[in-house]
C-alpha cells in the first residue's frame, strides 16, 4: 500500500498576530513557520498504518521555512521517503489551500498513492481546506474530520466525527484522500540524536514546478474581532488578579458573601 502524506507548513500563530501594512494579510516578518498540527497527526497515522498493515509512506511538503527539517524528521520517525515540491515561494509568502492543491496535484498523482493523508484544516483556510481541493484535483473521494482509519485490502474503514461528538463509520474503496483530525497515538517524539542523524543522512527528493495562482477570491481586509464591550481586565500580577477575581465572583454571588 502506498501512502502519501501532504504535510503543510503554516504560520506559527501561537503569539499575537499583527496585520500587514496593506491590511489584507498577516505580518509574517516576526512569526515563524511550523508544521501544521493536523498534518503532524496525519504523518503519525500514516506510520501507524504502515506498522499495522505494511506499505510505503512518503511525506511531501512544499518549499517553506523549515521544509527540510520537517521532511527529514519524518524519515527519522519512520517514513520511507520525503519529497519537497518547490513552487518558487519566497520565505514570507503563504499559499492558500486552493492554489496549493492545484500546484501539487501532479506531484502527488505521480506517486500513484492508494491513500493520501493530510491535516483536516490549517489556520489560513479562509477559502476552503486543502483535502477537498486536492481530492477534486485527483478525482478521488475525500473524507474529512477523520478520527480513525484502518485498511483491509483495497478498502479503508474510516471514522468521521460530527457535531456533538457523533461518529460515523464508512467503508470505502481506495484510493481516497483523508483529512485527519487526530491520530491513534500522539505524534512521536524524535530525540536530538535521531534528528541529527536524519539531517545528516536522510535524502529528500525534489520536484520543481510552478505555483498555480488560480484562487478566485481574496481577502479585502483583515481586522481584530470586536470584543464584548465592558470586558473588565484584572491586574496582570497573578496574586492580585486572583484576589480581584475572588471578590468579583463573591459580588456576583458565585462564592460566599462579599467581604
Amino acid at each position, binding site marked *: 500500500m502506498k501512502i502519501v502524506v501532504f504535510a503543510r507548513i503554516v504560520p506559527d500563530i501561537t503569539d499575537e*498576530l499583527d496585520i500587514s501594512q496593506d491590511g489584507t494579510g498577516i505580518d509574517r516578518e516576526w512569526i515563524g513557520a511550523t508544521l501544521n498540527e493536523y498534518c503532524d497527526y496525519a504523518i503519525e497515522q500514516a506510520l501507524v498504518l504502515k506498522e499495522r498493515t505494511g506499505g510505503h509512506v512518503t511525506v511531501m511538503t512544499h518549499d517553506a521555512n523549515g521544509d527540510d527539517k520537517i521532511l527529514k524528521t519524518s524519515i527519522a520517525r519512520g517514513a520511507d521517503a520525503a519529497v519537497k515540491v518547490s513552487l518558487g515561494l519566497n520565505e514570507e509568502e503563504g499559499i492558500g489551500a486552493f492554489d496549493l492543491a492545484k500546484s501539487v496535484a501532479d506531484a502527488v498523482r505521480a506517486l500513484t498513492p492508494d491513500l493520501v493523508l493530510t491535516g483536516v484544516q490549517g489556520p489560513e483556510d*479562509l477559502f*476552503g481546506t486543502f483535502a477537498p481541493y486536492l481530492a477534486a484535483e485527483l478525482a478521488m473521494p475525500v473524507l474529512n474530520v477523520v478520527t480513525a482509519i484502518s485498511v483491509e485490502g483495497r478498502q479503508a474503514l474510516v471514522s468521521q466525527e460530527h457535531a456533538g461528538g457523533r461518529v*460515523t463509520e464508512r467503508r470505502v474503496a481506495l484510493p481516497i484522500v483523508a483529512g485527519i483530525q487526530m491520530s491513534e497515538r500522539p505524534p512521536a517524539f524524535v530525540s536530538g540524536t535521531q534528528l541529527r542523524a536524519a539531517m545528516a543522512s536522510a535524502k529528500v527528493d525534489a520536484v520543481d514546478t510552478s505555483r498555480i495562482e488560480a484562487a478566485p*477570491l481574496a*481577502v479585502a481586509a483583515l481586522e481584530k474581532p470586536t470584543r464584548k464591550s465592558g470586558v473588565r481586565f484584572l491586574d496582570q500580577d497573578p496574586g492580585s488578579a486572583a484576589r480581584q477575581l475572588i471578590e468579583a465572583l463573591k459580588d456576583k454571588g*458565585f462564592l460566599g458573601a462579599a467581604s
Partner: protein
Amino acid sequence: MTALVIADTIGGRVSEASNDAVACGTLLSGADNTVLCPLPPGADAAGLEQGAKSILARNPAFAGYAPEMVGDLAAAQAEASGARYLVIPNSTLGMDICGRLSKALDFPVVANVIGVDVEAGRLFSEAYNGKLVAQIALPDRAILLVNGGAFAQQGAGPGDDTAEIAVAGENASFVSISEPKMTDVDIKAVPILLSIGRGVATKANLDQLQRLAHMLGAELSASRPVVDAGLVEKARQVGKSGETVQPELYIALGISGAPEHLQGMKNARTIVAINSDPGAPIFGVADIGVTADGMEVVEALLEGLGA
C-alpha cells in the same frame, strides 16, 4: 440572489448549525431562500428553521451518512434552481462535499462565515483560529461554509411551502453511526464550569485543577485538545464536537478560544477568561479577563480560597 441551503442531517437529525446556514441564506436572498433537507422516510425536520421554501428529500440512506448522495442532490438542485449561493454548515458534511461541488459548479468556496452584509457587499469570516476576522467582497456566486452559533435564529419549523421529493440511489459505504458515551457527568446541567485548555492542562497539573474546581463549586470541563490528550473524558468536552453549554459561570483557563470552542460556550451568562496571550480570541467573549500565567493564577486562587 437565490440561495440554496443544504441542511446537515446526520442520522436523520437536523444539526443546530443547519439553522445558522438557513439564517445566512435568508440574509443573502430573503424570499429566494430554499432549504434542502435530506431525510429518511418518516423522519420530520424537527428543529429546522424556516426557509422561504423547504424541500424534504427522502431516501433511506439519509438515516446514516451519505455525503456523496447529498452532494449530487445539491448540485442537481443548484443547477435546476439557478441558485447563486450554496450555504452549508461548516461541518464534516460541508467539508466532504464542497470540493467536488466547487469544481462541478465553478463556485468558489468561502469558509468559516460568521456574517453577511448584503448592502455593503461583504462576507465576514473567522481567520487564524478566530484571532482575526476577514472581510471578503461578496462574489456573485459561491459556496459558503457557515460557522455554528454565528447567526441569530428564529426558532421555527419548516414553513408552509414545503415539498417532498424522492431521491434514488443507495449508500453502500455506510457502516454505522454512534452517539457519545453517556456518563454520570452532564456538563450542560451544572451552573459553574471550570474549563481547562492546553495552556494549563497536563497530567501533573490535573490534581490542582480538580481541587480548584471543587473549591469553586464547579464541574470540570475542557477544550478538545485536552480531551484528545486523554486527560479528561469526552463527556466533559465543550465545543463543536462536544457539548454546547450555557452555565451561569464559565471560567476558561488556558483556552485560546478557537471558533470550534467558542461555538460551545459563548452564550454562558458570565465568562471569565484567563490566558497569558492578550490576543487570545477568548477575550472577545469574556466579561472578566486575566492576562497572566494560568497556573500561577490557579495557585493564587487556591491560596485565596483557603485550599
